[in-house]
């Protein structure tokens, strides 16, 4: 899932300075699960904004809504939602960066009598897993050419600070990474897992340099399923 964190309140407040009708739009998927931009967080931000406005004698109106997903037209094609967006001076999106961009493009495509301003309330941080209650860890960088079959299901690209394909480096110490003592050495984990799997021989194969073209280094990527298109 996509993990994000809410921006500091002062930063969000400065984005809506001078606006009198503010719509906060949450996302009911990834960012709800990581407790950054779902219904609860929308209401908390709404409450904070109203309190801050009242303190400053500002009469701005704050509306709160949630779309199940902001990265898909299907969940934005909702007449009452579009009407609310039309009525607002600014939309604060609490989705990940994908959702903010998609909602902005969608609203500006379907609404033609004005240009809709959509701003982010979150910093999108990574693709990760829920490790414990209230804790998420980065697990995949979307490199476009997955190697997990060779590394016992542990990603060296993401979890090794140096993205080594033939690890570990000399800094691995007691199972921890030299870059950050709180982080497990990915290669330590890989070797343990390969041993348990009886696949230690994998380590004897030297991995050649990685082709980064399928990654973001080759520019923004897209996936097209021709069989799904008419």
């Amino acid at each position, binding site marked *: 899932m996509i993990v994000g964190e809410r921006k500091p309140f*002062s930063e969000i407040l400065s984005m809506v300075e001078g606006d009198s009708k503010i719509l906060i739009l949450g996302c009911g998927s990834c960012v709800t699960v990581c407790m950054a931009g779902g219904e609860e967080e929308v209401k*908390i931000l709404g409450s904070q904004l109203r309190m*801050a406005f009242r303190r400053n004698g500002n009469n701005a109106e704050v509306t709160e809504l949630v779309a199940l997903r902001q990265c898909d037209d299907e969940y934005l094609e909702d007449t009452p939602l579009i009407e609310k967006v039309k009525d607002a001076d600014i939309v604060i999106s609490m989705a990940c960066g994908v959702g903010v961009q998609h909602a902005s493009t969608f609203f500006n495509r379907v609404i033609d009598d004005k240009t809709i301003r959509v701003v982010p309330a979150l910093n999108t941080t990574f693709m990760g897993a829920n490790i414990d209650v209230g804790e998420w860890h980065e697990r995949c960088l979307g490199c476009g050419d997955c190697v997990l079959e060779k590394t016992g299901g542990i990603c060296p690209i993401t979890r090794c600070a140096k993205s080594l394909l033939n690890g570990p480096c000399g800094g691995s110490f007691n199972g921890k990474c030299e870059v950050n003592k709180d982080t497990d050495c990915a290669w330590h984990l890989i070797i343990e897992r390969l041993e348990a799997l009886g696949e230690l021989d994998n380590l004897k194969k030297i991995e050649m340099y990685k082709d980064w073209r399928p990654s973001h280094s080759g520019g923004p990527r897209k996936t097209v399923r021709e069989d799904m298109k008419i």
Partner: protein
Amino acid sequence: MKEFEPRIIAFCCHYCALAAADVAGKMEFQFPPSVRVIRVLCTGKVEILHLLKALEAGADGVVVIGCKFGECYFREGNYRAQKKVERAKSLLEEVGIEQGRLRFDFVPGPGAKKFAAILSTMTEELKALGPNPLRS
């Protein structure tokens, strides 16, 4: 001019604080009449939004009163409540509202005296802070 009587919303755990409130009433331990008690099954059920909404609606202070640590009927509800109060305090600070308007505390099962003391202390502290600035 009428003296300012802070309005306090007290989220009280059914198993300790509520019992203490009852006993306090029966034993005639005085606690301020402007306190509104809201019974919750466990303080762990109190959400950050409840705390913010109470202040947004004009309460001068909000207190969550649970069991002593280690004695929560649901084991960890009071630990959760304490953390939520701390987070709500930082959210309030971001909007310029004093952290002192929010408080977490605990009473032992029959702690009527402590219950009354928590509310009296909070009342005094809120009198010093003045009314919730959102009401003016």
